């Protein structure tokens, strides 16, 4: 509870600024759509920072930073995909088409864009339902990331920290945080950028420079091999052994799942539509490329390097351990613990505000997506009523998904205990992987292909979803063992579990380099969804030329 005065002042100033900017947005013309209605320009810095704040959440910093402390710098491959796929490919190849098509079809949500382009209410409802049911998992882990930091910084229990943060988010949402006021988002993005920049500089300086810092971590490889060698760990600056448990977790779940899944994130896809022209998207590529590097790149490098601090600079009265063990195997606590021990208190407090900002900006975009999915995509589409009738369902949807997200943030920690696995990173990865498998083939097809058919899109999306669900319930042991369906039906945690060992764990089944119970759903569901979308589209009736001309107008 030390030094609470400075932190309290910072929190109050931050909340005052957010409140003031929100009020200005409420009173005047400050949201992205206001600018478009008025035909005015938004400053590219403001726009790019607001994008960044939505892209990057606390889970990316706290959860994935903690995962980097466990798995090492191999997850920098995810940062590469975040920048190259999540910014460059997404903005250059999907952004402009999404914006033009969205405006011509008068689509305002991701499910609505797909539903109108593919002329299918089923697609709109199906996509909306997946958002309603599964996005709370992602929102839950974002809340969890912030709560972990509050827990360590203020020294309260996780439950109290979660409650405290949920109340702040609820007030923010009620006060109009979902309106996407550009200056609010931009302020949050700027705070995040400065916080991460300072963290990077201080970390490298304290370890004697870039090369020396990396070398110190490389020299610790024998420790990693001794503790995690059986799972394939070869050190924090090396890739895990090809085909090992760690390799599959890092590559199939964390790097590929999140790296590709970002392309089909409903709350991000709608952001393309809120810009005035392609020029804004081009400019956002420049600033976004720097911003993401400074966010996930720094989080992963610092997360991995925290092992050097924990091991070689033990604080008085505390045994020197690697990061994972210093945080009692709670991966989500590694970054908060590292900062509170080794960074200047003022930076920790500033970083606290940065994480608050990261969580609030991301959560607001998530609740925007979930609320409109309930009201506009599911309720309005089923009842065929437009306009006023969906206000109440939308608000109820936000309330219910909010309660569900907070409950998940609580329950996940109770179930998993966060031992051994980076649950925050996995929760994000599960949602991203599901989005990639269920949405990405039809989304890309809708934007780029005149040959995709309604049946092809539906069959592909259903394949992606069903195979993902099957894999999570019956194959991928991390989830299937907790969900318990496989155990109840077949008496083992996964259909591909081998034999029960003396230590109470199940052996795996390996075919060549494939360790089946560690293969992420994305690896199977996504390729199958692509194949089914293409094959069914080749065999079924195409859209009329009029419909296609309307959809592709100006593209």
């Amino acid at each position, binding site marked *: 509870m030390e030094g609470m005065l400075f932190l309290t002042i910072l929190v109050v100033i931050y909340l005052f600024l957010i409140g003031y900017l929100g009020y200005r947005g409420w009173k005047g013309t400050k949201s992205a759509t206001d600018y478009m209605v008025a035909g005015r320009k938004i400053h590219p810095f403001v726009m790019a920072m607001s994008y960044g704040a939505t892209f990057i959440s606390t889970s990316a910093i706290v959860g994935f930073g903690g995962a980097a402390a466990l798995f090492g710098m191999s997850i920098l491959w995810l940062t590469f995909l975040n920048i190259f796929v999540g910014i460059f490919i997404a903005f250059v190849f999907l952004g402009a088409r999404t914006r033009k098509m969205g405006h011509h079809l008068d689509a305002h949500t991701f499910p609505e864009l797909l539903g109108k382009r593919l002329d299918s209410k089923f697609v709109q409802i199906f996509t909306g339902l997946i958002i309603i049911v599964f996005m709370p998992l992602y929102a839950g882990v974002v809340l969890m990331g912030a709560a972990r930091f509050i827990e360590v910084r203020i020294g309260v229990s996780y439950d109290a920290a979660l409650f405290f943060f949920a109340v702040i988010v609820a007030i923010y949402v009620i006060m109009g945080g979902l309106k996407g006021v550009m200056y609010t988002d931009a302020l949050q993005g700027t705070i995040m950028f400065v916080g991460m920049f300072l963290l990077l500089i201080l970390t490298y300086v304290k370890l004697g420079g870039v090369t020396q810092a990396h070398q110190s971590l490389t020299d610790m490889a024998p420790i990693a091999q001794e503790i995690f060698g059986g799972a394939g760990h070869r050190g924090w600056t090396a890739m895990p052994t090809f085909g090992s448990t760690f390799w599959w977790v890092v590559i199939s779940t964390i790097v590929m799942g999140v790296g590709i899944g970002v392309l089909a994130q409903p709350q991000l896809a709608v952001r393309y539509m809120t810009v005035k022209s392609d020029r804004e998207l081009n400019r956002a590529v420049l600033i976004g490329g720097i911003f993401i590097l400074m966010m996930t790149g720094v989080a992963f490098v610092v997360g991995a390097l925290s092992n050097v601090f924990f091991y070689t600079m033990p604080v008085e009265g505390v045994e020197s351990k690697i990061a994972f063990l210093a945080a009692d195997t709670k991966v989500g606590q590694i970054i908060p613990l590292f900062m509170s021990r080794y960074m200047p208190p003022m930076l920790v407090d500033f970083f606290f505000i940065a994480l608050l900002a990261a969580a609030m900006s991301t959560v607001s975009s998530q609740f925007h997506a979930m609320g409109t999915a309930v009201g*506009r995509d599911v309720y309005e589409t089923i009842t065929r009523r437009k306009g006023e009738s969906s206000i109440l369902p939308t608000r109820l949807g936000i309330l219910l998904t909010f309660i569900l997200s907070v409950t998940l943030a609580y329950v996940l920690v109770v179930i998993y205990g966060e031992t051994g696995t980076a649950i925050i990173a996995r929760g994000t990865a599960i949602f991203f992987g599901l989005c990639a498998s269920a949405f990405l083939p039809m989304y890309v097809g809708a934007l780029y292909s005149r040959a995709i058919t309604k049946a092809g899109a539906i069959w592909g999306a259903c394949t992606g979803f069903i195979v993902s669900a099957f894999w999570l319930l019956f194959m991928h042991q991390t989830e299937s063992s907790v969900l318990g369906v496989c155990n109840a039906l077949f008496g083992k945690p996964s259909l591909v579990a081998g034999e029960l060992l003396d230590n109470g764990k199940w052996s795996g089944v390996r075919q060549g380099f494939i360790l089946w119970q560690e293969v992420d759903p994305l690896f199977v569901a996504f390729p199958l969804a692509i194949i089914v979308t293409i094959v069914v589209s080749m065999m079924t009736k195409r859209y009329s030329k009029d419909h296609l001309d309307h959809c592709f107008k100006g593209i």
Partner: protein
Amino acid sequence: MLGLGDGMVAAAYWLCLASSALCIIYGALKWNSGAEETDEVDRHWAEEEKKIEQEL
């Protein structure tokens, strides 16, 4: 290698920097291209979007 123990991790480190550089170069070269005037379709879309925001 910058003190990194594995060529693949060093490659990831450099690719992060290279992809950021790609974004910077692309954004800088195209800084002023793609400008369009807001037309009636955009304005109609923005007005509807504003209505949705207010409902939230």
